[in-house]
């Protein structure tokens, strides 16, 4: 009896879970799109997403998120970034989760994340003894060079650009 209930309950879960996984990759399909919309709570509630892009496409550049704070008297100050630029000759043991946050914030649609990062930067600036009234987020981006250019000059630099991601008032 106990085994029967276990098998039946788990079978229902398995069918729903596998269907949701399949439907999540066919969201634009006429049949699977509605199935996904009805069933996606299984993924959202349990946090069992099935997005596996994994370097498709690969990153074409190196980006660092930098902060520029403005104090109450209009002075511009630098705020400690989530992760500092690495120096040449680096080696890292540990996966840096703060860098992952920074990398996630560059997409246009992620305004709420950038706002949360800015709010935290305000807090850290105040803790460091330099309270600011506004924080500007800047993406310091250097593109990877094409293979042939790199072979010709291994120490050369790729195209570089600073991109403003927005200014946020401190709470």
């Amino acid at each position: 009896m106990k085994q029967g209930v276990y098998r039946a309950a788990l079978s229902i879960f398995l069918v729903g879970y596998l269907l949701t996984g399949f439907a999540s990759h066919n969201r634009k399909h006429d049949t699977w799109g509605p199935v996904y919309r009805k069933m996606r709570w299984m993924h959202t509630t349990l946090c069992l997403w099935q997005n596996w892009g994994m370097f498709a496409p690969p990153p074409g550049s190196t980006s660092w998120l930098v902060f520029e704070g403005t104090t109450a008297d209009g002075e511009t100050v630098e705020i400690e970034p989530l992760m500092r630029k690495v120096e040449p000759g680096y080696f890292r043991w540990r996966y840096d989760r703060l860098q992952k946050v920074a990398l996630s914030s560059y997409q246009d649609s992620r305004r709420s994340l950038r706002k949360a990062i800015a709010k935290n930067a305000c807090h850290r600036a105040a803790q460091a003894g330099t309270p600011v009234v506004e924080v500007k987020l800047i993406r310091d981006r250097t593109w990877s060079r094409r293979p042939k250019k790199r072979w010709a000059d291994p120490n050369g630099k790729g195209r570089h650009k600073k991109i403003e991601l927005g200014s946020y008032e401190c709470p």
Partner: protein
Amino acid sequence: MPLSDIIGGVKAVWRWWVWFWFRPVQAGGTGLMRVLMGLMLAMTTVDIFPDLAILVGPDGIFAEASASRGVRLARWTYFDHIPTIEGMYVVHGLALVANLLFMIGYKSRTMGFLSVVAHAALYQRNSWFMNGGDRLVREMAFYLCLVPCGARYSVDAWLAARKRTRMGLRPAKAPMIPVVALRLIQIQLAFMYAVSGIEKWASGSWQRGSAVYYSLSTDNYSRSDWMVSPLLDTRLGYDITQIGTIVTLYWECWFWALVLWRPTRWLALGVGVLLHGGIHVGLMVAFFSFASIWGYLAFLPYDWAERVETWWRRRRLERQQTGRKALT
């Protein structure tokens, strides 16, 4: 069609379903996988400790507007209801205790579920600091909890054996558990590689063979600039990265077929170990490589742990006998 035929057909389908998902297999392999999974969960929890305040703390980085909307199916996390960072450290410490108890197998399934809940609570609070490896760990841990994963190599198993001894009963036979967790892990890996392969197939860099070169070129992901520079700065190095790109692309697309067919299974798993080893050495991907290689254990013969145990015991016995002979 007569009703009896329909009922017979349904019964046949159900028999196949039960065989596929619930057939009993030896519990040793799953027991050892639980130990390793517990270790990965504990390492993740420890890894997050130093940055906990900034990642999920009251003044940290999280979607404030979403948090203020309270508990919903899409967002439930106890971190939204803990007002101080001290409280969060305590709860995160308790999560570590649950991870370690899961690893040693005390109240295995309960501790496993608690570990998954703790992991998901972090994700719900701030999903942006977690990567695919974290997700894989969470999913695989959840699958393990669907079966009695503490039936072997655990405190639970030791307590049960001690209880039987005290009651004067014979030691229990090697326990058997449903195969469903191993099946889900197998399907998860095959699905993950297939989806990843299809997405890579549509990417120009993967088609041109330059994807591994560009992945290693970025200081955001590269483990070390001096380690990868021989691959990036020379024509020969680039050719090697091209081979790596092509092998990865085709292997991911066809992993499901290679692993399904017994003669190519070892090849698929061997290439996977090499690729994930290379990824871990060259790129910062957290626990992704460990979790993937861990999942390969589900593709081994179901009694692999018992076979290793028997071999080890026999070897120990032979050594003891050789030692005795030498003494006499």
